[in-house]
Structure formats: structure tokens, C-alpha cells
């Protein structure tokens, strides 16, 4: 057999020089967990500061210097955002689950370009290192990048001396290059390496979701790379792309950034949509309802996602007709998203539902994403958004879609596939405890933030007027609950990996119909030496 012909590399060579999609997927997942812990710790520091009015928590980290603590808070918001977006959610969903299961689901032996897959992954540790280093070098008077993850000019150009912002830009360049290479790899794999009979319209929805996602990345990241390169030259080589004094325009940066940034947030959620479809179908023991509608709803979300970017910029002073257009375009997104929610409900309708842990996370994702979705419809209206723009209402909205939508689908995928990936079952009680604690925790963090936002509390401030105390306090209590939930998750990971039990080929029974369940758990180092035929 072919797999024995080139054997399995051992030791560090297996990982550092890996060209195996499953090993690379595993490395992505480990990377995402580590980055998630860093990003989560950063949000803990922010919530610690915001628990009580006054600045007296972060000063513990700045030697009692209040001014440094204020800047440190901005560094934390920046770091938390960038790490969660580029180094947690994307590596987990696309690099991790995508690498592991896209080739298997389409009946391919590996990715199209295995060596490129290796460099895609290994750019990430370099990228996050640059970002972490930036925290410790000079930024705006104090160390670190305090621009927010959006890195708006001119705060990121004339507003930040020192090399911190440059390091962060290089970090984003590397992370972007990694994602572009990954995107090319997935596109080539999905278009060229499907097993005989696996037509596009028979492809599992997770593969569809990854396909749409990587197209969004491929088309939007170059724009972002261009924008931050212009930041770099504005900072260092006396160009004036974003400086009105030299004929440039600070708002040009925002347009370029959000032309990337809005598709990017769909990049974060679409793979979750795909994953949740599989899990709902598996545990309802029913095929997905309205398969074609589901696939093309994702395509529609992807396409429309490219023409709504300026709804992030309603208060920059745009022409009223432009705002009207972006309001209309943004509202349209609710239609395909609604199709997805209703189709998931219809998949469960008439099903025979088992409430295993992956299903719990998938159901939690559907419900909480609905809440994030309806507040999104509120924010889409430029007239109302004037009152909510840059307040905690926005923070609550996008954490309901990301921290509950994307993160819950990552956890759902983790429990769904950890048996397949490791060959070992996850602990029942601990995993369910993880779900319930996290479910309560995130809601206690983020639901009260709607109140704060309506009452006018701006985002990204380290101290607030006393009227906002109560809900900030509640929110921080929610963080502690969620933090405990994360510890439970890590205990569950440890118990899984230490488990002596083994799971069979198909852990979930007849509801699980995709190709990964035809392989052993864990799958062989090289699968499908003879291509499967899809009827």
C-alpha cells in the first residue's frame, strides 16, 4: 500500500516539516487554543479594569502609573481583537477543522499543495510573535499598539511613534499571507481533488462553507495588505495616503479596511454555519433540510458581504444617499441568514434528536446567533446607528455573533470531531458542564452590554461615568463564569487525551453520513489510497 511506501516521519520532522493535512490541522488547533488563552486573558484584564469605576486594576501591571495603564487598556483591546480574529477563530475553523476535514469529506488523500500548507501554518507563529513583541516596544509614549484592531489612520500613523505599530503591521502581513496561501490551497483542493461522483452539489455543507470563506479571504486580504502597506509607508517613508495635509484622506483607510473587514467577519462565521449544519443533521438523524438553499445562502452572504462595508462608517460624515444605500444592502443580508436559521429548525423538525455535547453547542450557537442577528438588523439602520455607533451595543452585537456564534461552533466542532481526530472519547459530564457554564457565562457578560450601549457608554474606554457601574460589574462577573468554563474545557481536553477508551469508526451512528465516518478513528496517516466513489 502507498501509505507504507513513504512511511510516517517521526520526532520533530513529523511536525516542523509536515506536509500532512491532518498533522497540520492538529497544529492549527493547538495554536488556536494557545492563542485563545492569550486573547481570553487579555479580555480578562480589560474586564478586571472595568469591574469598578476608576483606574486601579491595570495599574498593577504598570507599576502604579495611571497614564501607562490607560494606554495599556488600549493595547489590550487591540491585542484581544487581533488575536481572536487572526490567531484564534481563523486558525481553528479554517486551518484546523478545514485542513482536517475538507480533504477527507471530498474523498481526497491530502490538500492540493501540501508544502504550501506547511508554510501557511508556520507563518502564524511568526506572525503572533511579532504581535506579542509589539506589546513590549515603544508605541504612543508607552509601549504597545493602542489603535484598536482597526488600526485607523492617523492614530496609527502620526498618532503612534515608535516601532510597535510597524511590528503589528508586519504581523498582519504575515497572517494575511498565511491566509491567502491557505485560501489558494483550499480552492485548488476543492475544485480539483473531489472523488469521482462528488459533484459540487453533492459536496458536504462544511466544504461549501470553507469554499465560500476562502474566496472571501482571497478577494479581501490583498486589499487589506495594500491598506496596511500604505500605513507603513505613511509612517516611515513620508507618503501621504491617509494624511489630508498632503492630499491624502484618513477615510480612504477606513474604506479599504472595511472592504476587507466586513468580508472578514463572515470569514469568521461561515465555517461555523457549515459545521453546525452537519451537527444538527447528525444528531437529528435527518439529512439537512434544503441543502441547495443552504449552500447558496452562504454564497449569497459571501457576495453581499462585499458590498456593505461602509455600514461600519455611518458617522464619518458620508453623503446621506450613500448611507441609505448601505442601509438597504445591509438589511438584505438578513434574508439568507434567515434561510439558514429556518433550515436548521426544519432539519430538526421531525427528527430524532439526541442532546450530545456537540449538539448542545450547535443549538446554543443557533439561538445566540439569532440574538446577534436581530441586533445586527437594528444596527444596519443608519438613522438609529447614530445613537449606537461606537457604544457597547456594538460590542454586545458582535460578541453575540462572534463569541457565541463563531466560538460556540468551534466548540461544537471540537466535541463533534475530537473522537475522530484522537480516537478517544471526550468526557461526558465535563463537556456538558463546559457547555452550561459557558452558555450562562457569555450571556451574563454580553447581554448587559446592550443596556450599557443604549445608555451611551462608548467602546474602548478604561474608566466610565458612575451610572454605568452596575452592568459593567455584572459583565465582569460573567467573565469569571466564562473563565471557569474555559478551565473546565481544558480539563476536558486533558481527560480526553489521557483516556484509555477508544471510539469506533462512526461514533454518532446513522445520522453521520460524511466520508470521515467511513475511516478509522483516528484516520490512517494517508487516507483514500483508492479513491471512494460517490453514488
Amino acid at each position, binding site marked *: 500500500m502507498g501509505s507504507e511506501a513513504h512511511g510516517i516521519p517521526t520526532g520533530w520532522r513529523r511536525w516542523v516539516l509536515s506536509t500532512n493535512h491532518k498533522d497540520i490541522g492538529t497544529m492549527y488547533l493547538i495554536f488556536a487554543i494557545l492563542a485563545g488563552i492569550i486573547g481570553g486573558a487579555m479580555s480578562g484584564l480589560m474586564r478586571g479594569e472595568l469591574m469598578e469605576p476608576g483606574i486601579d486594576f491595570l495599574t498593577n501591571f504598570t507599576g502604579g502609573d495611571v497614564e501607562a495603564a490607560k494606554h495599556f487598556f488600549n493595547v489590550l483591546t487591540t491585542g484581544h481583537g487581533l488575536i481572536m480574529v487572526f490567531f484564534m477563530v481563523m486558525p481553528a475553523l479554517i486551518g484546523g477543522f478545514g485542513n482536517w476535514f475538507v480533504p477527507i469529506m471530498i474523498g481526497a488523500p491530502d490538500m492540493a499543495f501540501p508544502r504550501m500548507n506547511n508554510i501557511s501554518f508556520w507563518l502564524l507563529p511568526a506572525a503572533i510573535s511579532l504581535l506579542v513583541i509589539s506589546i513590549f516596544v515603544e508605541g504612543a509614549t508607552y509601549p504597545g499598539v493602542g489603535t484598536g484592531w482597526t488600526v485607523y489612520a492617523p492614530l496609527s500613523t502620526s498618532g503612534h511613534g515608535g516601532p510597535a505599530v510597524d511590528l503589528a503591521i508586519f504581523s498582519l502581513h504575515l497572517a494575511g499571507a498565511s491566509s491567502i496561501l491557505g485560501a489558494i490551497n483550499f480552492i485548488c483542493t476543492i475544485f480539483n481533488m473531489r472523488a469521482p461522483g462528488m459533484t459540487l452539489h453533492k459536496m458536504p455543507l462544511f466544504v461549501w462553507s470553507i469554499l465560500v470563506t476562502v474566496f472571501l479571504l482571497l478577494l479581501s486580504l490583498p486589499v487589506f495588505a495594500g491598506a496596511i502597506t500604505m500605513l507603513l509607508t505613511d509612517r516611515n517613508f513620508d507618503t501621504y495616503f491617509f494624511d489630508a495635509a498632503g492630499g491624502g484622506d*484618513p477615510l480612504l483607510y477606513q474604506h479599504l479596511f472595511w472592504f476587507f473587514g466586513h468580508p472578514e467577519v463572515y470569514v469568521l462565521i461561515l465555517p461555523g454555519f457549515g459545521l453546525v449544519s452537519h451537527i444538527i443533521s447528525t444528531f437529528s438523524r435527518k439529512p439537512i433540510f434544503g441543502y441547495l438553499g443552504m449552500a447558496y445562502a452562504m454564497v449569497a452572504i459571501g457576495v453581499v458581504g462585499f458590498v456593505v462595508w461602509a455600514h461600519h462608517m455611518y458617522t464619518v460624515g458620508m453623503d446621506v444617499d450613500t448611507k441609505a444605500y448601505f442601509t438597504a444592502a445591509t*438589511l438584505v443580508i438578513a*434574508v439568507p441568514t434567515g434561510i439558514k436559521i429556518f*433550515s436548521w429548525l426544519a432539519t430538526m*423538525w421531525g427528527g430524532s434528536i439526541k442532546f450530545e455535547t456537540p449538539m448542545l453547542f450547535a443549538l446554543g450557537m443557533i439561538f445566540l446567533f439569532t440574538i446577534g442577528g436581530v441586533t445586527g438588523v437594528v444596527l444596519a439602520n443608519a*438613522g438609529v446607528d447614530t445613537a449606537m455607533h461606537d457604544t457597547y451595543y456594538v460590542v454586545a452585537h458582535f460578541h453575540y455573533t462572534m463569541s457565541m456564534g463563531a466560538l460556540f461552533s468551534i466548540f461544537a466542532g471540537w466535541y463533534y470531531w475530537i473522537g475522530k481526530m484522537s480516537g478517544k472519547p471526550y468526557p461526558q459530564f465535563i463537556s456538558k458542564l463546559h457547555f452550561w457554564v459557558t452558555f450562562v457565562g457569555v450571556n451574563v457578560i454580553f447581554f448587559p452590554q446592550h443596556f450599557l450601549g443604549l445608555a451611551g457608554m*462608548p467602546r474602548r474606554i478604561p474608566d466610565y461615568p458612575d451610572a454605568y457601574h*452596575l452592568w459593567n460589574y455584572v459583565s465582569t462577573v460573567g467573565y469569571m463564569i466564562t473563565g471557569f468554563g474555559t478551565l473546565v474545557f481544558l480539563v476536558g481536553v486533558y481527560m480526553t487525551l489521557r483516556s484509555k477508551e477508544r471510539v469506533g469508526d462512526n461514533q454518532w451512528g446513522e445520522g453521520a453520513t460524511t466520508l470521515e465516518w467511513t475511516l478509522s478513528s483516528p484516520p490512517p496517516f494517508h487516507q483514500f489510497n483508492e479513491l471512494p466513489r460517490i453514488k
Partner: protein
Amino acid sequence: MSLNKILSTVAVFLVTLLFGGAAALADGIYKAKPDQLGFMEPATEVMRDIVSFHNGLLIMCIAITLFVMFVMIYIFIKFNAKANPIPSKTTHHTGLEVVWTILPIVILLIIAVPSFRLLYLTDVIPEADLTVKAIGHQWYWSYEYPDHDDFSFDATMLSDEEAAAAGHPRLLGTDTHMVVPVNKTVRMIITAGDVIHAWAIPAFGVKIDAVPGKLNETWFKAEREGMYYGQCSELCGKDHGFMPIMVEVVSEEKYNAWIAMAREEYATNETDNLTRVASTLPAQQ
């Protein structure tokens, strides 16, 4: 208003649920601001419209969320593995799919009509009675009164002790502040001297970015006298959270008296040349 009451009740219930006996906190929200769950009390027609449109949207949000929730609960009861051991084989139903595509479109159209009305009401600037310029700096606001010989002054945040002594809320009080007459349409011209800031007064329904090199316009017509507070609403560096905005709305007579005082008091302050040129530009319709 009644919606606010309902929300407040829900919140009190939540707080009681969360904290049980922690009376101090529950007590705090009764005293402080029972309406801190929703928007601030509106002081302009624009903000009143924003609040009423938002209340409509909120009802829609709650209805959709409850609908999804009840369908899910029904499914859990009716179609769990015990209650329904044999799953159905349905995979599609064209009629149903058409309905759940059309229905959201109809809901969105219902939203879009008042949404556009609100947008055009807030965004088209009516004939102004006076013009005030606000310039964002790291980290304070400057104000200029081009209608009155361009006198200008800076408004810097008061320390906690100074704010307490002056009777302003912590982090919201400034040493000097902008004054405008009640029931007059005020045209605001907003720009910035260094990085992007945003000038916002929640009770007016006003929030607009102060972008260096760009003049932004907005307007408000305050209906009640009083002191209005806002905060910078675009991340602008270390002291972004510490450059509050204070606007005092006064009667016509008090305003005229203040103008007379301010012209003398602030006469020696330097006015930024760049923005003086800008003030001569015609208003955009």
C-alpha cells in the same frame, strides 16, 4: 416609555435573580437612573424619533427571538429521540422555503420605510440659527463661535475632585463648555487637529466623527434647557475616555449674556486659522 418600564422591571428581576440578597446593588439602580437600561431621555425631535423607531425594532427583535426560541423548545419536546424514535425523511419543501425567504423580505421592507424617513430627517440639515465649531484634539475639545467674531475656547475634563466641587458627574464635567440657546437650530461644524475623534451628545441623537482635514456637519435643536453630557466616541489614544463633551442649553437672554461675557473672556484666545477659513464655506444641503 411603557417599554422602558417593562425593560426596567425585567432588569430588576434579573438583578434580583443574579444577586439575591445583594440589596446595595439593586438599591443602586433604583436610585441612580432607572432608565439606564434604555436610551437617555431625548431632548430633540431627532432623538425622539430614533427612540421610537428603535422601540419598534426592539419589538421586532424580541418577537423574532421568541419565535425561534419557542420553535426550538417545541422541537426539543416533540422531536427528541425518546418522543420520536423514527426520524422523518423530509429533505426539502419548496413552498416552505419560498415562504421563509419572502417573509423576511416583507419584514425588512416594513423596517426600511421608517428607517429611510428617519435617516433623511436626521441627515438633511435645516436652515440654521447659529453655527458652532467643535475641534477635537488629543485630548480635549475646542469650540469656536464664527457668528460672534470667532471667539474660541478649550474645554478640558475636570479632575474627580473638581467635578465633584462643580456638581458635575465624574468624567463628564469640563472646565468651560459650549452654550447654545433653547429651541434654536444649531449647525455644528466638526473637525479635528490631530487624530480622529467623534463629537457625541446622546440626548440630542448626535454623533459625528471629527476627522482631521475634513469638515463634518450635523445639527440639533434642543427643546429643553439644561446641561447635556457626552463623550468622545472614536478611539483617539490614551485619554480617549477622558475628553467629555458638555453642552449647556439656556434661554435666549441667558445666551446673549453668555455671549457678551465669552467675547471678552475668550477674546485673547488664538483661533485655529485652518478652521477659520473653513467656516466661510457655504453650508452643504
